[in-house]
């Protein structure tokens, strides 16, 4: 009897643990299924994060103003060249990942 209860509980637990990782995998597949060449819609705060990231990597994006101007583009290109990306100047998903801002890319893709 006691064994049966454990078995039921275990089964319930199993089914829960089986479904939960599936939702977790859902967020994972978002990151893995991103088109890295796509340019997401970024708000000013996102752009500020990118600008700070560029500055931390030794590039000069100009003022951290959340606006993608010529200085930011140049800094993006310099960063892309330095780290083996096509120097497109685009704030694409690959750039966000390269700066460690994958969460911005994933959020913007939703």
């Amino acid at each position, binding site marked *: 009897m006691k064994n049966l209860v454990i078995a039921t509980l275990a089964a319930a637990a199993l089914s829960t643990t089986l479904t939960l990782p599936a939702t*977790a995998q859902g967020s994972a597949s978002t990151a*893995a299924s991103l088109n890295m060449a796509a340019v997401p819609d970024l708000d000013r705060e996102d752009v500020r994060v990118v600008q700070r990231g560029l500055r931390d990597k030794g590039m000069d994006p100009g003022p951290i103003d959340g606006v993608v101007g010529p200085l930011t583009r140049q800094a993006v290109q310099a960063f892309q060249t330095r780290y*083996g990306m096509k120097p497109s100047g685009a704030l694409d998903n690959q750039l966000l990942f390269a*700066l460690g801002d*994958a969460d911005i890319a994933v959020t913007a893709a939703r």
Partner: protein
Amino acid sequence: MQIFNKVANKHCATALFLGSSLLVAALAGSVSVARAQSGPTPSAAGADVYFVDIKDGATVPQKFKVHFGLKNMGVAPAGSNRPNSGHHHLLIDTYLPPLNKPIPNDFNHLHFGAGQTEADITLKPGKHTLQLLLGDKSHVPHQPPVMSPVIHVNVVQSGGPTASAPGAEVYFVELKDGAVVAPKFTVHFGVKSMGVAPAGSDRPNSGHHHLLVDTDLPTLDQPIPNDFNHLHFGAGQTEAEVSLKPGEHTLQLLFADKDHIPHTPPLYSKRIHVRVVDPSKRTPSPPGAKVYFVGLHDGSVIPEHVTLHFGLTKMGVAPAGIDRPNSGHHHLLIDTDVPPLDRPIPNDFHHLHFGAGQTEATVNLPAGKHTLQLLLGDAHHVPHNPPVMSERITVTVTKSSQ
């Protein structure tokens, strides 16, 4: 791994006995673990991967060792779930792959999944790019990615066991790519930062010259062949008289050690092209062809700064390099005799070339008596047969009154 699983199972079983609240807690824990495992693997703060001993712009031999440096993280083989660790990937001549997927596995993306921290690489001579990118247990880059900047290396062909001196060079003295030469001509060999020693001599930082004619570089870790295309100068000669058939030829110098094996890095000159012109087959000029100074005669008095006009009868002007019949370009000889007519007209202060097809020139001459003469040259600056040249005139240059 297995031990960890057992512990987890035991934990789970305990939770089942202890009641639902703990069960929920345990499940919540497993959810957060699952999330951490399925999203990008986080890298450690301040983590950095770098080339230990190769700098951007380095010159390296064809076979070389790359040491991978890793700061603030550990190396773990692929498949290992250890936090703050990963394994190296070497990207060669390629852009950074998509950072959200496993790093491709091919000739441009070398995996070091066994946790290697160095690699022996063989690359073709030429320019290449290298970049390091750490991957997690599934070969996916971390977040933020742990990657080095791209470095550029210049791979040079490896030679034999004898080292060449840093900065050493071999080169042709005076002979330039595209030169026009007679069938018999002298080649001067130059060497910088090393000495010339006969073959067999054990002197350090030395070697002897080899002239490669109409052939590619031989295998550079083997003795240079000895034949008509590979001329050896084992006595330590620094010049040679070379006989070549009329036509286009290539020449290249290759330095080698006492055993005729090129050094490492090997020392060879640029491969240059020469055009051998048979003097008996010089470009013919038409009968009556004549070149002359317009409005200038023997005994003319001219100012220091003067424009000379070149006249040409029965022939046309064509820039140097253009091989049109009955044409040529002007050369102005100042204070000099007629140069040898079977070879290219020298190019110096006494022999001014107008290879762009100019028909006049402004010259500055110091006051006094000077001789001037015009000599037409063919596409390769060699006078025609018969030569088309003006009389040599003597002019008196007077200080201009302004």
